[in-house]
């Protein structure tokens, strides 16, 4: 199994490049909507109604837009975790476990020291989430570097271990307060440690979107900065591109593998903390599979910071929009997974897209360096 074949792109410096690298995913989305519509039609429902309800549900009101962001943020952060490892030639299939570790560490701190001042506590929790996620991913990186243990297995196995640990902590006691009504959940996150809500309630009542959005944007900047503006990032990409050549060029490949995994895990740890800080409690099985969907987001976003941010927003919008669609149009919200799969499929089947573009006389776009 190799991921070295994944394209290594240069940052899109020119507008044409930007358009050229975006046209594939956009066409993929269009194709996915068409094919998904056929699925809806065949199953006996009206695709127009379905998409209309989904769109309205996702962005139809300021409140829904805020919720769409909330659905997107963990996906975006976890996708940075997948992508950063990808850039080093590692397939981090275990962001799910890393984000569980981040959620556990930050929740543990916040519930153990509920009297600390808010600003201190939240910073400590952010650091703890990143350290925990990074350490968990680092194990896989270290094993890869030391023994060659395949990261696809180790990250996945460590994921299951992390999830089992969280089950134990929440179901068998250690993190469950005695006054919980028999439901496996942690104590509350102290209110002073909450992320500030972005829109005050006199503008938009009940909006939950908080400052973790800025944290996510910052994470994207850091992601791109490390990879494209630092020697470390250069070396990580070199290892990802061709480990043998990188070693020949004097790069300590083993160490880069470990560092790349640790940084990747730190993004995932953050991705785990954010949803807990929305619900203000760590619930058992709190993640609906962010770490797995993030793989799709990373691939659709073509492993670039901006691409991932946009892909994450798209996937988050579909997830939130599906709630209204299922309620109002009586069509299963799982249509979203079908659409997500189709987007991914058409992004992967680049040849198909190129062929379609050529048929449509858009050769210039196809030939532009993607």
């Amino acid at each position: 199994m190799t991921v070295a074949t994944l394209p290594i792109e240069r940052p899109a410096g020119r507008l044409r490049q930007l358009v050229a690298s975006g046209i594939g995913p956009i066409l993929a989305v269009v194709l996915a909507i068409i094919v998904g519509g056929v699925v809806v039609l065949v199953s006996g429902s009206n695709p127009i109604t379905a998409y209309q309800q989904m769109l309205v549900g996702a962005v139809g009101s300021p409140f829904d837009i805020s919720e769409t962001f909330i659905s997107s943020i963990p996906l975006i952060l976890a996708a940075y975790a997948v992508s950063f490892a990808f850039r080093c030639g590692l397939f981090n299939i275990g962001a799910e476990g890393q984000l569980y570790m981040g959620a556990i560490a930050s929740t543990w701190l916040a519930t153990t020291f509920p009297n600390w001042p808010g600003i201190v506590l939240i910073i400590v929790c952010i650091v703890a989430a990143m350290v925990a996620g990074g350490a968990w991913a680092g194990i896989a990186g270290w094993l890869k570097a030391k023994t060659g243990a395949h990261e696809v297995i180790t990250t996945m196995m460590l994921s299951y271990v992390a999830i089992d640990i969280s089950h134990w902590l929440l179901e068998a006691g250690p993190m469950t307060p005695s006054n919980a009504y028999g439901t496996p959940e942690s104590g509350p996150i102290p209110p002073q440690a909450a992320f500030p809500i972005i829109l005050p309630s006199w503008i938009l009542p009940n909006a939950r979107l908080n400052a973790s959005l800025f944290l996510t944007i910052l994470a994207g900047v850091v992601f791109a900065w490390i990879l494209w503006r630092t020697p470390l990032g250069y070396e990580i990409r070199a290892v990802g591109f061709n480990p043998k050549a990188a070693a020949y060029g004097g790069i300590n490949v083993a160490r880069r593998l470990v560092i790349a995994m640790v940084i990747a895990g730190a993004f995932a740890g953050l991705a785990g903390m954010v949803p807990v800080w929305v619900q203000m409690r760590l619930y058992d099985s709190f993640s609906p599979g962010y770490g797995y969907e993030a793989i799709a987001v990373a691939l659709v976003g073509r492993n670039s910071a901006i691409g991932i941010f946009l892909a994450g927003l798209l996937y988050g919008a579909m997830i939130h929009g599906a709630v209204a669609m299922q309620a109002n149009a009586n069509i299963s919200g799982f249509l979203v997974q079908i659409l997500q799969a189709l987007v991914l499929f058409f992004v992967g089947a680049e040849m198909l897209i190129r062929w379609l573009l050529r048929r449509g006389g858009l050769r210039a776009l196809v030939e532009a360096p993607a």
Partner: protein
Amino acid sequence: MDVIGTLASIFARPDLWAGTLRFAAPLTLAALGGVISERSGVVNIAMEGMMLVGAFFSVLVAAATHDIVLATLASVLCGGLIAAIHGVASIHLRANQIVSGMAINLLALGLTSFLMFRFFATSGTPSDIPALPDVKIPVINNIPFVGAVIGDQNLVVWLSILAVPLAWWFLFRTRIGLRIRAVGEHPRAADTLGISVYRIRYLCVILSGLLSGLGGAYLSLSVAHSFSDNMTSGAGFIALAAMIFGKWNPIGAFLACLLFGFGQSLGINLQGTGFPDQLVAATPYVLTVVALAGFVGRAIAPAADGVPYEVGE
């Protein structure tokens, strides 16, 4: 708590060992499929999706026809069909095979749950669907311990065990097996010798779909006797791990599946004994990591695994 005593009594339970075989069976089928597919050079991380499709469509057909043969056939065919999509993407469209595999997994989850809602949303799948038959072995059935372990296992369990030496023989002792491995190691050389790289790869990918589909049917028709959203819950990924753990060898993969099956069975048997079963459930995963790092060593994939091939380049 008497740890040793409790463990000893659990290890003496035939349930533990019968459960090991039961849990290992669907994993084995999927892992063997993965081995065959990757030996031909097509990375397959889509066993999860193929199993899920097999699980759903077998129940759908079972509910409609009450015919176990048709239901099983449906699972195998649908597994093969969705594998064929992965085949087209990986072989003809030269898509990134990890991307395509992930897409297949997501598609299977979406499609099966979408159709589940469409057909069975109100009441769940019917309870009167037929099950895959158990095989009662007359004499062995009556031997005290052994009888309880293997005397009354499901047909699919036996099929999965039988499939292991069969897959090994197929890959390493037949002409087509040699061709498969040639295509997976050095497709250009195989092509030069007149072997159709594409045809071999399609065959292997579809074979993996057929096997995973059957594994899925076993999960839904026999183990759960129903279908629920995402019911494979990672079994296909465990099979993927078993494949790599077993170094792309059918026998190694089977042993890894037994380990995972044992872990699952142990977790269930420890429930209610005072052991933190959530942590026990994690032991096979920890063991895998330790084993992989400690003494299994570097897992080396077939040389052309995941590399698309272009005829006449």
